[in-house]
């Protein structure tokens, strides 16, 4: 029986961006990755309109984390505190598409490290791996504004993705990312109007929208994931409707949110099953759930979770 045709008259699609610069492009990366390009909502139309496959950015911290649960920590116990070795392990053993270097240690409450430290870690990690790198601040405006420009400069020419900038703190990082030719992450607190506003603000500063990735803030499975989910779906629909201020690829911070939950952390929870498997699966489930709403870059932590999500992505793309 013939079925009716579903005609879509979309006017926009998600911007395609290529992270990383190889020597041909003035950088030292050995590989680049391209994300974005979706021209429909997830699983609508044909698979040709799905765009590039989502990629996994594995978190590497600039200092040893002090609040990671045992099951997560043990995957990195030989490299904790050595960001370069840590990054290498993520790429070579765990198959990270990209490294997300997270500068927790520069936060005034978490070590208050200086620019010299941050620049050294940045250079070490860039030298240790050939994949593109994300440089993510500590979310303390004052410290980020002081340190992240130096980090940006140290990675100049590598076409990194750097962030985050928000509605109330965007000027210094936007300016330096523009000068150093990086890509920029705009952040909003689960509010689609603010998300658009930040994009307008950086665009007003002359930052090209085609070099922006949005971070809507991430809720873990069971802890507000539905808010992130619906905002990402609405962003995709706005993109398809032709809104250039919303047509950016989307990044989610899966790892740190998932590993804050009881379900991932609790070692002894009767009736919830083996903790060694529960934690990684909670992270993988959060990732796959948000992918259904349209996610291009997934920041993740546990290698088992990464493996599960990669299997899923390979079957779908």
């Amino acid at each position, binding site marked *: 029986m013939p079925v*009716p045709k579903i005609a879509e008259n979309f006017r926009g699609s998600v911007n395609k961006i290529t992270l990383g610069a190889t020597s041909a492009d003035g950088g030292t990366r050995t590989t680049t990755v391209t994300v974005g390009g979706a021209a429909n909502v997830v*699983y*609508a139309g044909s698979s040709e309109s799905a765009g590039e496959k989502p990629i996994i950015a594995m978190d590497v911290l600039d200092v040893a984390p002090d609040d990671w649960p045992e099951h997560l920590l043990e995957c990195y116990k030989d490299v904790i505190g050595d960001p370069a070795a840590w990054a290498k392990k993520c790429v070579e053993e765990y198959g990270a598409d990209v490294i997300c270097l997270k500068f927790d240690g520069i936060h005034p409450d978490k070590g208050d490290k200086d620019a010299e430290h941050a620049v050294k870690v940045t250079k070490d990690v860039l030298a240790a791996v050939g994949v593109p790198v994300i440089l993510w601040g500590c979310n303390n405006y004052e410290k980020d504004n002081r340190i992240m420009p130096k980090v940006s400069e140290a990675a100049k020419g590598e076409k990194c993705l750097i962030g985050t900038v928000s509605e109330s703190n965007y000027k210094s990082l936007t300016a330096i990312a523009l000068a150093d030719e990086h890509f920029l992450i705009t952040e909003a607190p689960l509010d689609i109007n603010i998300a658009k506003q930040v994009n307008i603000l950086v665009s007003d500063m002359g930052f090209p929208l085609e070099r922006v990735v949005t971070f809507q803030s991430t809720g873990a499975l069971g802890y507000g994931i539905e808010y992130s*989910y619906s905002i990402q779906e609405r962003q995709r629909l706005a993109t398809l409707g032709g809104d250039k201020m919303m047509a950016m690829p989307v990044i989610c911070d899966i790892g740190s949110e998932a590993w804050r939950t009881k379900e991932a952390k609790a070692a002894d929870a009767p009736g*919830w099953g083996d*903790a060694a498997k529960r934690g990684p699966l909670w992270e993988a*489930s959060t990732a796959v759930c948000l992918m259904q709403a349209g996610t291009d870059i997934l920041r993740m932590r546990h290698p088992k979770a990464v493996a599960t999500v990669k299997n*899923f992505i390979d079957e779908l793309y």
Partner: protein
Amino acid sequence: MALTGLQIFKLLPKTNCKKCGKPTCLAFAMALAQKKANLDECPDASEETRASLAEASAPPIKAVQFGTGDGQVKVGQETVLFRHEEKFYNQTVVSVTVSDTLSGDALKARIEAINALQFDRVGTHIQVNSITIINESGSADSFAAAAEAVKAASSLAMILVSDSADALAAAVAKVADAKPLIAKATADNAEAVARIAKDNGCAVVAEAESIESLAELTEKIKAAGVEDIVLSLNETLKNRLYGLTQIKTLALKKSFRALGYPTISCVLEGKAEDQAVKAISLICKHSSIVVVETAEQYAMLPMLTAIMNIFTDPQKPVQVEPKLYAIGEVTDQSPVLFTTNFSLTYYTVESDAEGSRVPCYILVVDTEGTSVLTAYSGDKLNEKVVAAAITKCDVENIVKHRKLIIPGYVAVMSGKVEEETGWEVIVGPRESSMLPKFLQEIA
């Protein structure tokens, strides 16, 4: 699809007799279109008019129920493609498989394990609510025996899966009163399987390789007298996900009745982890029933939580129970902080309080599920609400001190709260993320 006022007007007597209470037939038609009137209010509407209006107002995706009593489940009758447009109504049913190659104690243990897949998280009970019996043995007798054993040991809604109409007939004969969902009718056996469903008043799964042949098959089953149909697209995971979106879009946007039914998908292979994430994908993207093989608790918890999250009403803020929550090994000297009962607010505060490793109490005051600033500006959070919560939760007997930490954003309330409660107010940080440092300093 719903008719417009003008389309309805054409079907009315157009006498403007006012018997319905409206001045004209057109006004009545408009009221009908907006569902503010009922056709019964028109004494002169023809049978034909009634029939076309009923047809037009039938839900674009049919509701289908199976199982009985407390175990009965309902799927379908969804109205939107995206949850933010309205909400998703009937939660995905997760069903776990039992093979009919099992018998005796092994069979019993498997059924028990499935019955036990129940969890309480954040004050809500979530559970697996169906068992799927698969005719792997190829024997009609074993299949019927397994179905009978499941019926005896579980009240969960049953799905019977076999390629053989004879095996289905044998099993249904044993458990018809449990109203199992019968799977599956294909192009080859549609008449025979539809007859079993019709004779026993059961719903049936229609399975085909393409959307076009699925539409053909449902018409055939409907012609055989069965209207409670569940669709199964027998395809790879990828094509199935694209197909599910296409089916739902056709039903909702094109009023394509031949595909206006709930759907079922199976994920029976691979590791528990792989099954769980595939199931979550199917849950988010429109499969009304998801059948999995894994009965692992660690795999089931995320699947059921995903259902809980995706099916929450986006218009209604999710709330936590307003009460006193103890974080860590509290004593009568532990600090007390308050926040609102908007779930996102509470979980953020809870997680940061836990992160501080300082045992403390969080007093959750009832602000009808709004965040701190929203509640304060709407006067749902004021000194009286805080004082009432302290009394109601018996905080004065639980702790010996009289110090209350209030959210930094409502520092302006300090004076009034001190007056009303007699407690000393300490202004906490504006952002929850600063709580660990704050608590460590005051502890």
